[in-house]
């Protein structure tokens, strides 16, 4: 057992471990970290479990692929079946917040209105959630990206939008002291990104929470309608080699393992699946990106990783964002091979990249265990034919914005379309009937696999995250979303987690 306010790391486990707490939280990503900190500050005895290790600046690797191998499950090479699309899940203290681009957006009111109507949620309006958004934003100091660190790449997007009369805005991020290094995806060396390991977890520790890293929860223990704790094993960082066993007994259990892991934990434990909805309804925000090449040097490595966005097209089903990533990852999208590919690599310093994330709320999938009882997920997902035109339309708008900003050519990266398009070629994009396999898509926003629903027959949790049919088992991650948010989901997940923590504090 650890003292209050302590962190245990892999090197410190030499025997089986048993501990007790008021609340045990599984997963230290944005949602779990919020729950742990809020409950600890409310005076509850909290244990926070995390399968990954804490990363210090000297643990960050600038090589994009090796960084992903260290910070992501399946080395960052996870993909859906059905329609093949890469998707990632972090394994680190702080979860995805360590390696995301820190985007914090409140969904528009219409998203919550649709949730309320279709999923019988009478307390989940934007107005009811605004105090929770305020609390998270206030703690993290979330603010729009200042012009000083936008860099030319982001500002070109603003210029292109302005010329076309499209609304754009600086992205609000959980970042303080950003220097525009563009390294959000490999870990912020400037310690400017307020990922959970730097913000909520230390605050929770100050309030007395105990943090066990490198421990994998394998089963939720229960007796009748009550969860009684969590059992699992210590695992070595990176290799996953199993070590001693552990068991944490608690008055309440909160699962925040992410929407690809929480459902498997519930299925492995035989809990909370009276509706049959655990692991179903998997949704993503598939993303497509286009690179524009400009006559002048853009130096795209300078500036916030994702500094500008346009929310104008949300009602149509997509959102535009600027984008930067490790050069090796961006180069993967460039067409060609040999000397022609090298010509294109040499154009990266003249490039600006814009992506669109699409709602695709008709496109559904599942998370299932690789084999019975396994915690390794198999993801099936198919792009619904009615969601295809949204991606095509988004591509068309991106290309328009890039040309309006002065691009001399764009590289759309779509099969069946020429590798490069000039300003006069955009009709090709608009006239084409796309197939799902034409796009090079990726999706790192995933949700809905333990969805909330007012009716226990159709959902896994209620509006406060409590599992239907159980007194003290909660879910706090993006799995509880009943449908996609249409915008980057981290802030919404944290606001809902904040509400769950408040509700739980009154019960424990």
């Amino acid at each position, binding site marked *: 057992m650890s003292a209050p306010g302590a962190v245990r790391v892999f*090197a*410190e486990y030499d025997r089986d471990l048993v501990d007790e707490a008021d609340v045990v939280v599984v997963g230290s990503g944005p949602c779990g970290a919020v729950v742990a900190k809020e409950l600890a500050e409310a005076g509850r005895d909290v244990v926070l479990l995390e399968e990954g290790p804490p990363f210090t600046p000297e643990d960050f690797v600038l090589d994009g692929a090796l960084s992903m191998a260290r910070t992501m499950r399946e*080395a960052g090479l996870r993909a859906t079946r059905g329609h*093949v699309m890469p998707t990632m899940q972090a394994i680190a203290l702080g979860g995805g917040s360590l390696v995301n681009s820190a985007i914090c957006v409140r969904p528009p009111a219409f998203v919550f209105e649709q949730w309320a109507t279709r999923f019988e949620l009478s307390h989940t309006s934007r107005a009811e959630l605004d105090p929770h958004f305020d609390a998270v934003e206030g703690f993290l100091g979330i603010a729009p990206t200042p012009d000083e660190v936008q860099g030319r790449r982001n500002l070109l997007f603003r210029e292109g939008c302005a010329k076309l009369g499209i609304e754009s805005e600086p992205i609000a991020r959980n970042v303080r002291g*950003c*220097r525009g290094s563009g390294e959000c995806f490999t870990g912020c060396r400037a310690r400017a990104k307020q990922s959970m390991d*730097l913000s909520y977890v*230390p605050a929770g520790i100050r309030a007395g929470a105990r943090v066990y890293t490198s421990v994998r929860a394998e089963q939720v223990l229960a007796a009748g309608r009550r969860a009684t704790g969590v059992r699992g094993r210590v695992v070595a960082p990176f290799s996953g080699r199993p070590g001693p066993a552990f068991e944490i007994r608690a008055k309440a259990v909160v699962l925040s393992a992410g929407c690809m892991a929480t459902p498997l934990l519930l299925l492995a434990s035989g809990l909370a699946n009276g509706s049959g909805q655990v692991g179903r309804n998997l949704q993503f925000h598939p993303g497509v990106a286009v690179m524009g090449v400009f006559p002048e040097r853009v130096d795209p490595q300078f500036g916030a990783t994702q500094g500008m966005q346009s929310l104008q097209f949300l009602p149509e089903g997509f959102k535009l964002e600027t984008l930067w990533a490790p*050069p090796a990852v961006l180069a993967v999208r460039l067409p060609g091979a040999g000397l022609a590919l090298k010509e294109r690599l040499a154009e990266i310093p003249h490039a600006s990249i814009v992506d669109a994330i699409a709602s695709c709320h008709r496109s559904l999938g599942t998370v299932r265990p690789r084999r019975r009882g396994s915690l390794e997920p198999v993801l099936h997902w198919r792009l619904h034919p009615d969601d295809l035109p949204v991606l095509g339309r988004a591509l068309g708008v991106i290309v328009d914005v890039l040309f309006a900003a002065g691009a001399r050519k764009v590289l759309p990266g779509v099969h069946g379309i020429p590798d490069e398009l000039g300003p006069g070629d955009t009709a090709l994009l608009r006239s084409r009937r796309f197939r799902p396999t034409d796009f090079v898509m990726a999706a790192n926003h995933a949700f809905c696999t333990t969805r909330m629903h007012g009716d226990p027959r159709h959902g896994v949790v209620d509006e406060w995250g409590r599992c239907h049919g159980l007194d003290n088992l909660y879910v706090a991650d993006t799995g509880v979303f009943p449908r996609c948010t249409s915008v980057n989901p981290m802030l919404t997940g944290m606001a809902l987690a904040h509400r769950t923590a408040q509700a739980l504090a009154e019960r424990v």
Partner: protein
Amino acid sequence: MRSLGYVADVQVGAALSGMVAVLLVALGWRVLGGYPRPATPLARLSRREATFVAAAAEALFPRGGAVPPSGLDAGVPAWADRWLDALPAATRFLVRCLFALVEHATLLFPARGWDGWRRFSALDPERRGAVLEGWRTSRWFLRRLVFTSLRAIVTQGYFADAAVLRALGLAPFAIEAPVTAADALYPPIGRPRSAIRFSADAVTVHGPLDRPPAGAPLVPGSPLHPAYRESPP
């Protein structure tokens, strides 16, 4: 007549067996034989895989052109070895299957010329490029997916080379960070807490609001990260 037929059957059977044996030997040679030993010992790549990765790196990133280093200059096979070593076993197996598939798929999708069915790494660089272009532009999604996956691996290895990043002006910069509360809580991975470098007294940033929204922005000409300088310290 029956004995003559029996003899004929035996002869046909022997001939068929011989042909199968020859085919198996040829196939075995194709899959296993004639691969050179790597110049430096590798942890995960077999000599066959190392040869294949080198051939793919040379085809995708030949010497010269807009970015001088070739895939071989950039040390892509050695990088691929390090990367494979960092992968989980199941993922590593899939990557190995990918290498073997492209290496031997010339049996199904041969290169130009009478010997176009030779394994990928045995083709000359120009025909290797043509084979990869066939995968890239295929109307079959799975072939395009295979190409994209292979090129992603090789490209990431190419960009891991400091000289390539310097040539493109994309090398990372040196960044000094303040001491945050987290820096006094966590040791480097694999080390005990006694390895934590900072005490609580050294912390200068205690929470998110301790810093202004923007720091001094990095600009072209800022000092490079030590590992990416032309002459690393």
